[in-house]
């Protein structure tokens, strides 16, 4: 049992990444700690915090999830998916924007919701849940603006230069949206135990987390039809994260948070994506062996 963190770190090294993981048995409280308190840049993982804050506001009556929002093409936050990739005006409900934000990591949908909810409300919601090391300092549009600025005239191509990577503010947890693996499993545990919101809102959050389309990270570690995996990824140059929950048919539920940095600056690295699943599985197997 004690060698589980060593096995996890060996799997990270084998895949050419540095990684930090925390896994939590949602019902017993048993944990696996492989760098659980490492401050890490959240990137799109912070969309989970935004979703929880959105539902808290709705539960308090501060907004109606069916409320319609306008998304004109001009001024949309850039991104390769969802509203961020669409060309024409869109009108949709807050909760459908929330679905796009979680299912395909839609940056435009996330910033529309952030404009409605506010960064302060997101931080306040996380503090209230006892997440002392989770903090958002900018919107997704502002986050990408720092990358554009730090990358300089070379644009996206400059992001394969290690020299450029070392100066990106977006990769420094002290200067961007941040959390720790332990804070994220704490949040997922609260959502799954209906402690973060009312059961009705908890179920809505769990539903969209289960609709994420990406198969290449955490889900790849659980190639079992009878295991349900829900999660949210986060990615930036050299940074690959996912936080999620694996649910087994015997009732076992495990929250896992994995944050990694790749050695290679290349954008396409399938092994680095897959090791998030490998590491999560090592942790969940170890937690299940304890029962």
């Amino acid at each position, binding site marked *: 049992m004690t060698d589980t963190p060593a096995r996890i770190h060996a799997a990270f*090294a*084998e*895949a*050419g*990444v*540095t990684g930090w993981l925390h896994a939590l048995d949602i019902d017993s*409280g048993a*944990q696996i*700690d492989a760098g*659980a*308190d490492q401050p890490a840049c959240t*990137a*799109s993982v912070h969309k989970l915090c935004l979703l929880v804050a959105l539902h808290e506001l709705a539960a308090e009556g501060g907004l109606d999830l069916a409320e319609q929002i306008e998304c004109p093409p001009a001024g949309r936050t*850039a*991104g*390769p*998916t969802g509203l*961020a*990739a669409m060309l024409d005006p869109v009108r949709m409900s807050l909760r459908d924007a929330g679905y796009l934000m979680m299912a*395909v*990591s839609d*940056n435009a949908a996330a910033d529309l919701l952030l404009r409605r909810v506010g960064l302060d409300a997101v931080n306040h919601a996380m503090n209230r849940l*006892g997440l*002392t090391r989770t903090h958002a300092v900018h919107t997704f549009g502002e986050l*990408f603006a720092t*990358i*554009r600025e730090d*990358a300089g005239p*070379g*644009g*996206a*191509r*400059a*992001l*394969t*230069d*290690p*020299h450029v*990577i*070392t100066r990106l503010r977006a*990769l420094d947890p002290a200067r961007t949206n941040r959390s720790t693996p*332990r804070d994220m499993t704490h949040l997922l545990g609260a959502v799954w135990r209906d402690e973060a919101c009312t059961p009705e809102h908890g179920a809505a959050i769990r539903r969209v987390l289960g609709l994420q389309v*990406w198969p*290449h990270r955490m889900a790849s570690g659980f190639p079992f039809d009878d295991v349900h995996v829900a999660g949210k*990824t*986060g*990615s*930036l*140059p*050299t940074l690959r994260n996912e936080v999620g929950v694996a649910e087994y048919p015997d009732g076992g539920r495990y929250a896992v948070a994995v944050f990694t*940095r*790749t*050695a*290679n*600056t*290349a*954008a*396409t690295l399938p*092994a680095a*994506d897959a090791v998030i699943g490998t590491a999560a599985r090592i942790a969940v197997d170890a937690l299940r062996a304890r029962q």
Partner: protein
Amino acid sequence: MDLVRHLECFVAVAEQSHFGRAAEHLGMAQPPLSQRIQRLERELGVRLFERTSRQVTITEAGTLLLAGARELLAGHEEFMATARRIRDGETGLLRAALSPDIADETVAAVLADFPRRQAGPELELHELSTAQQLARFASHDLDVGVIHHPCDVTGLELGPVLRRELGVLLPRGAAAAALDEVPLASLTEYDLILFPRSHAPALYDDLLTTCARNGYTPAAVRHGQGAGFVRGLILSAGAVAFGPYDAQPADVRDRDTENGSGVIWRPLAGAPLAWRHSVAWPKGRGDAAVSAFAAAATHALRTTAGARADAPQRPLHLRPASEYWL
């Protein structure tokens, strides 16, 4: 009261929400941990945790103090590191490293050039792999070094990234040996000899990916590093290896030497493969001596190893799962 030690206990219990696990984390027994928390609470006049028979939860007051405790601990660590650095600086020592593949001529050039750029500090030069250098940066046992990319550059400052182009080592009698430049795709009938993957998984994968992208997917990859072992495999086992020009002995570099070892080095067409180096040092710990070493090593790599600035030439197609767009 040793405040630092007590604050370490406070933070550990806050993070683990459990005395037993916190004690395990700290490598101490539970009773002295409980006593320390109680003593800290008495000293501060603040209750930090609510304890029930099964659970420990941090109080509102504890939450307010936690961030400050973490800052104090980080400050303490930084303070001790600075003291170590000043102590070592007083002894006038710069602890520097080069990776084992740097050729003798380059090493000699660095050693000769450094004192010209920075009189005073003595240069203690080590031969260390990139992984060893990163570990020593983290433990404050190394000031500066020449590393290989790709590697995790978190927390580092870098000098310019330089490319040392790789050529292919093949039998003199091979058809491709007669070419001025060898296309990777012409090596398909040969196995490849490479360093063991565990030494640098990211670099290993990067080399094989670049080979595949350029039409060379070896049927087998054999692992070896020693010059004699590698040459033996090239001569008798239908295999080739890669290496930079500057690291080859004269008889391997020169096509016209008849009494050579039977192995010849040829450049690769389009120079698709390279070792990529830069000088690296921990963020915020650069000083005049580090800058002088960086300048000396960069200059030596340029002049003795033919290293050139690394400019990304290839197009980059981000896929939707990248989640960002510039």
